[in-house]
């Protein structure tokens, strides 16, 4: 009889033990509490960090092989963007100019400058100057320069005051939300097409009024469909 009772009890204990936390858990209890309390905070912090403009490379300014200064060429000399970025109105790429474009002037101007050595080398050898990409969209995003420039979106709207940049940096966050802000309300940025490359252009009137008028006139209805940019 006692034997049997004993067995019963141990069986019972065993079946109950399934519902009792094991002893070793006590040791890591503080750690678990920390995870429980800190986890959500960590996740929020990570999300916040992920959304931060600099995380999205806003302000990114890589060191280029040639310290080409937009401030001198555009700001001081007043060159039009399209002197170098010739395809901006016809192609998806604004395109970096071929070395020959640089040499048009620099065969005569500062032909000995050590800073221009890579350009001269490239011109002589036929090897490209290896510029670093500043505005780098993910590969599943298809952006087309011509579609924006010919509609009256100024260069400055996305690239900032390039005429004041010694070296080019990324001025806008170029996140999808930022794209959509404009696609939903292009009137905030539309300008007459002849001024798209003018860096310091200011509307003579209220931007929204002008923008709405230009929208009407040029039938500008930017799409927010996914396939507009993702194909």
């Amino acid at each position, binding site marked *: 009889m006692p034997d049997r009772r004993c067995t019963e009890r141990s069986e019972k204990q065993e079946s109950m033990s399934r519902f009792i936390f094991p002893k070793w858990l006590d040791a890591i209890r503080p750690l678990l509490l920390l995870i429980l309390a800190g986890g959500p905070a960590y996740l929020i912090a990570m999300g916040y960090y992920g959304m931060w403009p600099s*995380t*999205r*490379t806003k302000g*990114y300014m*890589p*060191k280029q092989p040639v310290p080409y200064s937009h401030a001198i060429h555009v700001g001081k000399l007043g060159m039009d963007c399209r002197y170098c970025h010739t*395809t901006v*109105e*016809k*192609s*998806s*790429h604004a*395109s*970096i*100019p*071929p*070395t*020959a474009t640089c040499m048009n002037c620099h065969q005569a101007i500062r032909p000995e400058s050590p800073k221009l050595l890579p350009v001269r080398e*490239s*011109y002589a*050898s*036929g*090897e*490209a*100057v*290896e*510029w*670093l*990409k500043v505005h*780098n969209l*993910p*590969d*599943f995003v*298809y952006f*087309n320069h*011509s*579609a924006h420039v*010919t*509609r009256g979106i100024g260069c400055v709207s996305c690239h900032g005051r390039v005429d004041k940049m010694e070296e080019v940096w990324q001025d806008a966050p170029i996140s999808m939300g930022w794209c959509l802000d404009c696609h939903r309300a292009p009137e905030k940025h539309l300008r007459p097409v002849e001024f798209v490359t003018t860096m310091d252009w200011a509307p003579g009137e209220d931007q929204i009024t002008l923008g709405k008028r230009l929208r009407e006139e040029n039938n500008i*209805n930017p*799409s927010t*469909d*996914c*396939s*507009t940019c*993702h*194909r």
Partner: protein
Amino acid sequence: MKNGNDTTTGRDYWRSLEEYSQTPEFAAAVKREFPNATPDMISENSRRDFLKVMGASLAFAGITGCKPAEGWPRWPEEKILPFTNRPEGRMPGNPVYYATAMELAGVGRGLLIKSFDGRPVKVEGNPLHPESQGTSDVLSQASILEMYDPDRMQSLMESQGSSGQYGRSWSEFSVAMEGRMARHRGGRGKGLAVLSEASSSPTLRRLRAQLQSELPESAWFEWEPIARDNERAGSRAAFGRPLRPQYRFDRAQVIASFDDDFLVSHPASVQYAFDFAEGRRMAPAGGGHGEQGGHGGDTRFNRLYAVEATLSPTGGMADHRLPVAPSEVESVLGELAAELLAAPGIDGSALGSVGARLGAFRQGNKHQAFVKQLAQDLLAHRGASLVVVGTRQPAAAHALAHAINAALGNVGHTVSFTEDPAGNDATHAVQIRELVERMKAGRVETLLILGGNPVFDAPADLDFGAALGQVDTSVHLTLYPNETTEAVRWRLPRTHYLESWGDARAWNGTVAIVQPLIRPLFDGRTPAEVVASVLQGGLPNGYDLVRETYQAAFGGPNGDGFEHTWKKALHDGVVADSALPAVNVAIDGGSLAAALGSFAPHEARAGADEIEVVLAQDACVFDGRFANNGWLQELPNTFTKLTWDNALLIGPRMAQEMGLADGDMVRLEAQGRSVEVPIWTTPGQAGKSGTLHLGYGRRVSGKVGTGVGFDAYPLRASENLHLAVAKISKAGGNYAFSATQDHFAIDEAGRKATQARLSSLIQEATLDEYLHGGHAEHGHHPPALPLWDPHEYNGHKWGLSIDLNACTGCNACVIACQSENNIPVVGKTEVSHGREMHWIRIDRYFRGDPDDPQVALQPVACQQCENAPCEQVCPVAATVHSHEGLNDMVYNRCIGTRYCANNCPYKVRRFNFFNFNGGMTAVEKMRPNPDVTMRARGVMEKCSFCVQRIQQVKIVAKNEKRPIADGEIRTACQQACPSQAIVFGDLNDPKSEVRRQEESDRTYALLDAELHTKPRLKYMKRLRNPAAGLTATHEGHGAAGDDAHHG
């Protein structure tokens, strides 16, 4: 057995023989509820490993990744390398198009290649080319994959017997050849032989003539496994000189094809398919879409009769098809000739003595009903009818067909003749036999093999490989290392046509200049360059060689005239007015009688335990040369739906009699040589015959092609290259195929439901019913109501229409789509799991007697529903409706739940179960279309109506401040389609072609009445044009004969 429901509307179709007879295999296949979720994905172990790996990858996520930009945490550094001097007119980011041509088996195909930043990415037809007219075929579409194939021959090698292989350079080769040539020149070319592929290149012809005049003792042979020698011999028999028939199917009202798959397998099939479709467009009258009936316009409608052993796309299109054993096809032609001769008003005098003998065919007329009806139809359409004979048929049959066409007054109307560029050359079989004899006799010391793979594909009785061993110095110029390369001394890499300068003649003779799209990726040269190098020493340049050829024709070497004409020829892709002129012909009674000397009625040649095996050109690998092309290997055959394999195709009755099931191995033995192959039952295959496609079973190929399928060449003997009468016996064992035919079948309930709906899925009518309005009785269903508010489409409203009257099932759209949209190849195993990725599948249905069925084909891509079931179940809005009615698939949002694929009633969504696009080499990475995102593992994809093309045209049109013209946007499938069965456009544009088609009374949508999905992809129902005397193809030909087993 059940038979077709004879009412023409309740068409009783089935998809596969398994489904038809409800075999255990089919039951097992549908029982696996998720056939594409196979255990290897979700077994216990792998799932645990997966979680472990997932945990690890999360932990390491912060410390790995690409090299980040200096000082910036997230993105890898990317470089932009501009030109140093940009070519005029080049705009980075915009594609450039160049015209060129691809030569296949001695016939050029005019192409237009899209190039991005110097990389060719897509093959299109050349709109200025008279045969292409902007469309193209499967093989040229897929050829681009070969150029980027890392398995190609990459460098020169010299093999020195057992001591191994040594890398060499072209200059070393040139020096070595100069030494040898000095000796050959001494003997005026004695001991030198060239074996070339068939080539129409005027430049190569010029060099060949030069070689033969400088070294008259040298010999030049041509070998092409798929040649059209019988056709050439046939015209020589009929007219006394070798001529090439040029057909005008658009002018023919009645067409009879005797084993001629002119719609897909002919070198000019791209044009022929278009012309044929023109004859049955049943186009609504111009602007008359408001009219009652909608067919007030062109009601011209041709009728096609086909006599063939194996079901070909042409047979599938036929209004009446007569399956007969391959050797009997000529007898049916004889019966037809006899029938026609007996008709009043037919002048048989040209036939001379043959005429009387043809009477014998009339007495034994087994196919009386068919032949009588055909004869009657032909007689009623003199001058507007056409009898064509396939290249597998003997020369006598070709000659007789020419005589028939002449007697019917068709010559000059539906068929004309031009000189054959091959002229009076011996047939390829004779040429290669001559070469082998010379090699065996030790009369060949130096053999130059330009392309090709004779060790693999030369007639088996010649034993080319052994003879090659007798040659002291053998040279093989080849695109890929292959069986022949293994056996030669010098192995030279050949350039792909996209890397070469050259020229080629189309079927009608039009010359196209082949211009390179890219510098040779590997160290290759063209055949012309190699011949010139051997002849002249040094390493002549292909560009100069081609220019030299046209100097005289284009007006002097340095004159402005030359440069102007040359540039125009390059730009247009065709040399103006270079088509061969039609010649006047008359039947030459003497030579015709000689050719028909032994032409007599005969039974099928196969005796007991024998089978006639058709050795056929393969629609994918052709003669074996495309074996390493993954796109082609994975392309489902139009009718068998086999991928990655060939098989002995036999009819269901024969399979039943022999007790064979699909995949059972059989042994075929002919003339002491045998092969073991698995069988595949194919509806419509004539009794006691089988079809075995050539080009599989490659022993030496690249990673893709080696060991795929079964080699049929051992059955091929030089006296009859197209047909082998072989002893057949069971070999034991079963082989596992990967066929796509029953993919996406659901279960018994699903099958019944599908069956019940088939009459609405595949809608068709006879021409009579259509014209007299007895056809609109499909889809009785209570009107469906929308569950949601309908979308509004204020701007564009894209729609696609597919005319089932024109679709031949050639698969060009499938490959064009694969190329345009970067669709991966998944391999045989994954196909067997149902994971093929093609965005277009061509459904095919059979109806009636399995041994003589009627066929219906239907390309199915995403239907772009307005009420899309997929959109409603996606938890992350990765598939959403656009304002223009596209069902946008957003890859970067997709998390791979596959709910959408589950909910799609059309089963057109494809899931990346693995990273199918991964592991590309640097060379392969240059190939994908940069306009389309590469999809990674875990992402759903599907047809997008080529949204990248839509956006491109929209942007350009708006840049230029003009509306989009109808037809300006062309989807990849539409652009490729040879018969132009596909039309894309804006449904909101009342003048658009697609709108006109949508308003046609032939148009219907899949499952719309029932599910109210409102598809944007519409079908135009197929019309058949059966003769009054023969009601439908599967019951067409009298009760007598070998097909009297209906019921």
